């Protein structure tokens, strides 16, 4: 959701969630991302965010999201401060709110926050005057991932209106899947989720969402297929007996992809566990959009940062 400034602040806007974003808001961000991609190549917007100081607070490990936010901020000329959580006073017991208020006082105007607790960006948004961008909170939301996924699918499929997108894996515990559901629905796509029972719990009966109980049913006629990262450390005992058992029933491979629409692309938010969620051949083959997803990360985050700071 793109929220207007809370009372008492001059201009902070936030991107905390995809839920509540309208189709037009999403399309505007995707179009802006296309503009930003050209701008980055042509080095034309290099002072757009010159007045801004953008803080990166990643309380949970990340490579591609953190790096792409940093590159996006620098490409637009912002000053970037990375709150290396390990090296900060976070380890000394300082609370999240106190740390963020300190960052605000040092001049940070927009904060990119990743946190293991769902809802942490909402706490940040109401406790500080900074513009907050949610870079992934617990199992709740990962809006910029959903935007770059939508951008990638739009490039591959054209309009998403009426398209059937299959999302396979641990949907119930995935912030990526949760945000994709909202963005893809807003763009007119139909969704089918598939996975072991505990991983698709809570999705039956949702408007525009089907639940499939086998990989074949999940893929049947799908225009694009997204498979999710299996959390290796918590898979066993949390819905599936073993990774081997999961792969046996749910791993994507070329043979299973024959159930999908001809040429249907494959997406994965990364990092992949090749051989677990999908075969190496598929991940690196012609159907794969995984590399393009990563490439689209920077222009999407340029668009998001320009939006929350009011620069675009």
């Amino acid at each position, binding site marked *: 959701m793109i*929220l207007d400034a809370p009372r008492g602040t001059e201009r902070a806007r936030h991107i905390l969630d995809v*839920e509540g974003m309208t189709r037009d808001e999403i399309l505007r961000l995707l179009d802006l991302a296309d503009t930003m991609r050209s701008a980055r190549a042509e080095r034309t917007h290099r002072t757009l965010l010159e007045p801004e100081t953008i803080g990166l607070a990643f309380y949970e490990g990340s490579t591609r999201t953190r790096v792409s936010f940093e590159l996006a901020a620098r490409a637009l000329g912002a000053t970037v401060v990375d709150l290396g959580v390990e090296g900060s006073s976070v380890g000394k017991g300082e*609370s999240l709110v106190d740390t963020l208020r300190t960052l605000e006082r040092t001049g940070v105007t927009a904060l990119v926050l990743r946190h293991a607790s*769902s*809802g942490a960006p909402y706490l940040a948004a109401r406790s500080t005057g900074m513009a907050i961008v949610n870079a992934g909170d*617990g*199992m709740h939301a990962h809006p910029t991932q959903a935007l770059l996924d939508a951008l990638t699918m739009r490039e591959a499929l054209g309009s998403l209106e009426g398209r059937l997108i299959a999302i396979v894996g641990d949907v119930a515990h995935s912030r990526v899947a949760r945000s994709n559901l909202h963005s893809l629905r807003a763009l007119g796509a139909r969704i089918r989720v598939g996975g072991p029972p505990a991983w698709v719990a809570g*999705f039956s009966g949702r408007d525009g969402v089907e639940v499939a109980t086998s990989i074949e049913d999940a893929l049947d006629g799908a225009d694009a297929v997204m498979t999710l990262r299996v959390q290796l450390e918590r898979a066993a005992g949390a819905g599936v007996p073993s990774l081997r058992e999961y792969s046996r029933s749910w791993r994507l491979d070329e043979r299973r992809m024959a159930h999908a629409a001809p040429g249907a692309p494959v997406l994965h938010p990364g990092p992949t566990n090749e051989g677990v969620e999908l075969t190496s051949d598929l991940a690196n083959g012609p159907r794969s959009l995984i590399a393009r997803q990563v490439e689209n990360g920077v222009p999407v985050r340029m668009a998001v940062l320009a939006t929350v700071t009011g620069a675009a």
Partner: protein
Amino acid sequence: MTAGRFGRLTDPPASFLVTDVRVIDPNDGSDVVRDLAVIDGFLADPSTASDRVERIDGRGLVAAPGFCDLHTHLREPGDDAVETVASGSRAAARGGFTTVCAMPNTEPPLDEPARLAWVLERAENASCRVRVIGAVTLGRQGEALADLGAMADAGAVGFSDDGAAVPSSRLARSALTYLRGVGRPLIEHAEDRELAAGSEMRAGPTASRLGLRGWTPSAELTIVERDIALAEETGGRLHITHISTAAALDAVRRARGRGLPVTCDVTPHHLALTDAWVAGSRRFAWEEPDDAPIDVEHSYDGLCRVNPPLASREDALALLGGLADGTIDAIATDHAPHPPERKLVPFGEAAPGMIGLETALAIGLAAVEAGHLDLARLIAALSIRPAEIINERRSLAIGQPADMVVFDPSTRAVLAADSLASASSNTPLLGVELPGAVRLTVAQGRLTFRD
């Protein structure tokens, strides 16, 4: 500051005459408008009151037996910055309570007679009677039974490892067996720790929407069913505190149908608030749910984190039904003070619990206004029924010590933090308009609160 004045149990006995007050006495089911006199701390025939006795206009007010809270956290010893026996008892008096039962999960826990005695001594000049609940197991560690008989002799009215269930079936069986001889109930916080591990809020569509880990009703039901089976075998008395699911309520209803001495209480917040409050809704269970976007000001608010978690709307309505039909004996607040720094954190890191002594009556009155409860039943569930569970009697008969509350059921006010007598203000009801206000509380013949 809190409006009104507080008194203590050590004050001189009160004398006053309330005229034309609606007296609701669940002891005999009576509901009449009359004068009510208290002379030197005892209920008296109004015609004997002299002209020097203060007269209070009771028109529009309700008089009832004093309230009894079976589940209060006074935080002493160990955390007196958050609440004390003194401040908690003032919150109780302001809420119309004349008795609170202090839970033993203090630091150190109340698991031996001397610690119970320490609390009782501090409570001698409190603003309500303070009774103590002893820990079931030593140090609340769930490994060995504490000296339950000695604690009963020191005043324990029941035993609980509140914050957790007695973890092992074997130990729960031992406790119920032994307590049969002691004549006190096992007060169970029914939660299977393995099923509940890591949960952040009630499982369901809202938890799924918010990406919070869900607590499933089986976590409560498995312990309730276990304890009912053990109570049936041993003859021990079982009280389930803060029951929060329709499934557990049905189990209690079936047990009582077989004639077992199983009782239970529900908190005001499990009756009226729902899991939608975690998403920012501020509608009561009996109101039509809103379909609002996740609200930035109120969503993921640590003030809404409680254990057991706020119920689904369906369960809250079932609990209201269970209270109305008497399956649920009592309303107990689970008044749980916490400082802001333990609440102004990401939702799943927030300490569970909210204060409740000063809002219990208001929430009950809101349920009455909504047609889910009648006023006499609400009063019984706040006063004589919980009192019976700890062997206290409440009477509005002439000659008895005055132990009563007089409240205005129809006034309305927005709850403000600076109006609270509690030393803490952790409740999501701040800013919400609520009905009702206590005007007088009289405990043991002493005026403990007056507004």
